[in-house]
């Protein structure tokens, strides 16, 4: 997805010509995300899961919840770790092997968007202070690629977390013992929504698809929370933004984020 060919150049020219007329290749408005479909509980044996499609980008997220050791300096907090991986069947250019920098960035941005929103109240995930805590692992795998993995992974993880069931453990004989039959929800504070915008020439488009992603000059991913505040941001790509563009992108992320938050809420409530 990184190589630039003559074909890519032609696509970019076409995309730019359309944008000059206020149009996008797939007919969307500039500030319109693609259709988001959410299948909750796609992996029933996990503690939570979701399989989502954002246009033709498809991601599966499975959540595992299990006892773990706390970090030495935060013995009063549980763990939350969110990962992302590009499966080689998602696109012909994906290679197997250790994750490359773009995938490491994807995983870290997805993780940070959720973590910085304080979506999960990790202070409630303690089994025994300093000794045993609950770890929540949200692992995203990209199954089909058509651009904008940042938002797709974020939505998959959020949908999976909102509908996760967490077991309960008691601290007995110096180890965590599963309390059979007791299950609860994760302690959720807010619903973070990431909105990624691409800059192509002087135009900024929401949720770039694969062709737009290959053509864009820069991008910014902004995560907002249920209060309409901004809680995480990541700029990328090999060009820059003006100050005004960045402020405008903030506003767009709040507006588009609110729509997607409703979608995430309703699909999770259907599955309680």
């Amino acid at each position, binding site marked *: 997805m990184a190589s630039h060919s003559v074909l890519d150049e032609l696509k970019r020219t076409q995309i730019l010509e359309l944008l000059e007329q206020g149009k996008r290749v797939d007919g969307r408005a500039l500030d319109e995300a693609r259709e988001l479909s959410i299948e909750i509980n796609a992996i029933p044996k996990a503690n939570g899961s979701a399989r989502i499609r954002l246009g033709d980008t*498809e991601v599966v997220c499975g959540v595992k919840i299990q006892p773990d050791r706390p970090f030495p300096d935060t013995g009063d907090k549980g763990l939350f770790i969110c990962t992302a991986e590009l499966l080689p069947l998602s696109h012909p250019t994906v290679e197997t092997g250790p994750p490359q920098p773009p995938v490491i960035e994807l995983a870290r941005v997805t993780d940070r968007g959720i973590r910085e929103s304080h979506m999960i109240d990790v202070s409630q995930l303690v089994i025994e202070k300093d000794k045993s805590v609950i770890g929540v692992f949200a692992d995203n795998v990209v199954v089909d690629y058509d651009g904008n993995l940042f938002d797709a992974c974020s939505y998959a993880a959020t949908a999976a977390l909102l509908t996760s069931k967490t077991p309960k453990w008691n601290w007995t004989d110096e180890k965590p013992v599963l309390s059979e039959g007791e299950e609860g929800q994760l302690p959720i504070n807010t619903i973070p929504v990431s909105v990624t915008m691409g800059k192509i020439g002087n135009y900024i488009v929401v949720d770039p698809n694969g062709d737009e992603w290959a053509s864009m000059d820069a991008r910014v991913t902004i995560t907002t929370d249920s209060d309409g505040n901004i809680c995480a941001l990541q700029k990328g790509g090999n060009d820059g933004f003006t100050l005004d563009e960045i402020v405008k992108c903030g506003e767009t992320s709040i507006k588009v984020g609110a729509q997607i938050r409703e979608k995430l809420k309703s699909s999770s409530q259907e599955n309680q």
Partner: protein
Amino acid sequence: MGGRDATMVLLDENGIRCDGRKIDEPRRIMIKAGGLKNADGSAYIEFGDNKILVGVFGPRDVHPKHMSNTDTGILRVRYHMEPFSVGERKNPAPSRREIEISKVIKEALEPAVMLEKFPRTAVDVFIEILQADGGTRCAALTAASVALADAGIPMRDMVAAIASGKVADTIILDVNNEEDQAGQADMPIGYMPSEEKITLLQLDGVLTPEEYKKCVEVGVEGCKLVYDLQKKALHDKYFGEKAD
């Protein structure tokens, strides 16, 4: 194979297994050909509680070139488990088990694929275990055959696969996870029905010579059942009402 949970009843007095099946009854199997946009061919299988996605790319160029073969195409297979596919979260690094199973499935598919038809190139088969429930390698091999056919790769036949095994001193078809853990033997079989060739075969657990023969026979019969479902999946996609 002594079984961790000796108290579990794997087979009751009426010949009914722990999940309600009869001894020669496979689990629910659902195969779907296609589904992925970017892969050249793909398949999805649910085999009991296994959920597996397979994508195929190729024939395509090989990099670096010296890995290619001027006389024949090469087949590359990766069997990979998602971190959330098993009980305790799996470490993302490829395990030695995954590497061995990748090789075993590759060698089970090679007799079926007409590699000589595309020299210098490679066909890649990517197997993703989304949820595991005992018998993943058989379910994966079954789905990989369908994905290869979906990609239009020339094939002598498809390989169908299922495990036979032994629980409570009885030979059974399609070993599930509990039976694998607590049972006496597990024998995954891959079979090309029209070629009458066994291309995958493994065994863990103790069998008398008679049980061994029975186990292979029961497995081969099971593969024929699976084979029909493979053909149906391709038919549904290409000739069914829902064909696109």
